């Protein structure tokens, strides 16, 4: 940058972090004619972003309109598979609905964040937002109790603005240092480690039974996926790469004798996984902290002069079956952006004037889902031995019995298999207790 324009006091809002939440907020505000500065610490938007997941795009599609046709997606999700792994066995369920193969593909895509996040930030820029990269926000500026700007690591790096949007991600250093958010305990934060491996396109399509444009998400649970921990393994298909990873809570990572990278290697060696991931070459190795504390970890969202959105606000759902964060990041950015537009038009930036953000979020699917599954994290930790170790093993043993070829009639095998499962669940009483305890999983 040859000449640095004077950013101080020029903008209505500063957005910290050009990830999905930050760019959604910037785009929403810029579309309604606010002056927005989007600050990204990486070389480009997406350079610091990692996910083990899929992009859920209803709100992105709505916000970007026709521009969405050019969104750099890898494959639409056509196949979802859940595999329960004991150390050597797999029991799996796979779905491939016809409807998902048709546009808009249930708004679910695999993407490379390096491409996708840059494209999404570009949409905000086209709408009028200003992006600066390679700039790290190090602190907030306060006047009394109100937040009135940010400190950055640029020379003369203080930038004042009426509103600050904290979209700094799960490793939310600024929000925590400013006492806007408590640091979660290690049971409430997961670590995800991921290897991206490159293959021939045909290899990926053959191994996963895919056409040219559809993709697959394989989720794995149980001891073979991530030891005794609460978490799992995953494989996502991109066009020419596979994203292969494991994610489990930091407290489980402390307990496990293996380090996260060793756990990842063990997962790749599982007999059910190895044939899918063999060969290729590693093109990237990454890790990310994942805020899994649910509703009880969501901090106060609106402050005098600032809001918190996305992963920084712990807006992430993991209930074992649904692993969602990208959609909630965008939704929170959108709702926060609208609230700020409203407040700025009213000439205010105090927390009370920003309440429509937490209120709208509260009545949206975001908080609805988080509250509905708030019990899951504690539940999964209490039940982890049964869920992730005993259950996969018992299932395998019962399946072996059920399908066994010998000279005994099917009825004998079926009865024996049923008894094995019942025993694993702790007999009739245990099973009844478990059924009661687990009922919420199905509701």
């Amino acid at each position: 940058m040859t000449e640095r324009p004077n950013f101080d006091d020029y903008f209505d809002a500063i957005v910290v972090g050009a990830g999905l939440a930050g760019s959604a907020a910037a785009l929403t505000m810029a579309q309604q004619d606010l002056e927005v500065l989007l600050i990204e610490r990486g070389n480009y938007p997406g350079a610091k972003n990692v996910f083990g997941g899929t992009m859920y795009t209803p709100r992105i599609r709505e916000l970007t309109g026709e521009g969405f046709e050019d969104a750099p997606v890898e494959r639409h999700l056509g196949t979802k598979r859940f595999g329960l792994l004991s150390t050597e066995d797999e029991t799996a369920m796979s779905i491939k609905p016809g409807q998902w193969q048709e546009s808009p593909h249930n708004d679910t895509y695999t993407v490379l964040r390096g491409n996708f996040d840059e494209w999404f930030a570009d949409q905000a820029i086209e709408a009028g937002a200003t992006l600066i990269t390679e700039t790290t926000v190090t602190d907030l500026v306060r006047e009394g109790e109100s937040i009135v700007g940010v400190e950055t690591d640029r020379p003369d790096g203080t930038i004042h603005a009426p509103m600050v949007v904290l979209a700094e991600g799960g490793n939310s250093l600024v929000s925590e240092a400013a006492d806007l958010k408590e640091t979660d305990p290690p049971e409430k934060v997961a670590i995800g480690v991921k290897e991206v491996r490159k293959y021939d396109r045909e290899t990926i399509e053959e191994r996963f039974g895919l056409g040219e444009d559809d993709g697959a998400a394989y989720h794995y649970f149980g001891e073979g996926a991530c030891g005794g921990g609460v978490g799992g393994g995953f494989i996502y298909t991109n066009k020419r790469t596979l994203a292969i990873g494991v994610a489990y809570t930091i407290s489980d990572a402390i307990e496990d004798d293996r380090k996260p990278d060793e756990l990842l290697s063990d997962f790749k060696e599982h007999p059910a996984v190895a044939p899918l991931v063999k060969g290729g070459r590693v093109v990237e190795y990454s890790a990310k902290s994942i805020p899994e504390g649910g509703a009880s970890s969501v901090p106060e969202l609106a402050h005098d002069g600032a809001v918190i959105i996305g992963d920084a606000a712990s807006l992430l759902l993991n209930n074992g079956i649904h692993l969602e964060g990208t959609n909630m990041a965008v939704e929170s950015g959108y709702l926060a952006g609208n609230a700020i537009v409203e407040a700025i038009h009213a000439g205010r930036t105090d927390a009370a004037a920003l309440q429509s953000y937490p209120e709208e979020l509260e009545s949206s699917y975001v908080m609805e889902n988080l509250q509905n599954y708030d019990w899951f994290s504690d539940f999964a930790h209490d039940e982890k031995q049964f869920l992730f170790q005993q259950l996969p093993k018992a299932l395998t043993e019962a399946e072996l019995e059920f399908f066994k070829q010998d000279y005994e009639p099917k009825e004998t095998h079926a009865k024996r298999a049923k008894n094995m499962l019942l025993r694993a669940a702790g007999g009739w009483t245990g099973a009844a207790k478990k059924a009661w305890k687990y009922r919420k999983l199905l509701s």
Partner: protein
Amino acid sequence: MSAHPKTPEIERPSIEDRLYANKYTDHEDSHLGVFEDETCLDCETYDCVSVCPANVWRNEGDEDGVPLIAYENCLECGSCRWACPYDNVIWENPPNGTGMTYRYG
């Protein structure tokens, strides 16, 4: 030993092999550190070492003390921050666009 003799051989890359694939820009000062050396001297579990996916935190040799910090390996996940039971980890974002640059993410 696997009961599946035909399970294909899978590459077990070392941390170094994995990191070699990444794009990294060095910054001169470590963005990681500890607040109090004393705390590490009293620590027996070294949870920072256990959770680090990139061998940044190292408790090498059998001498007790502050772990070695190979900050240039850092994937910037922040796990060490939550892992340390004494809240003794200093963690700053690498400045001015340095550190890891993810292309796939």
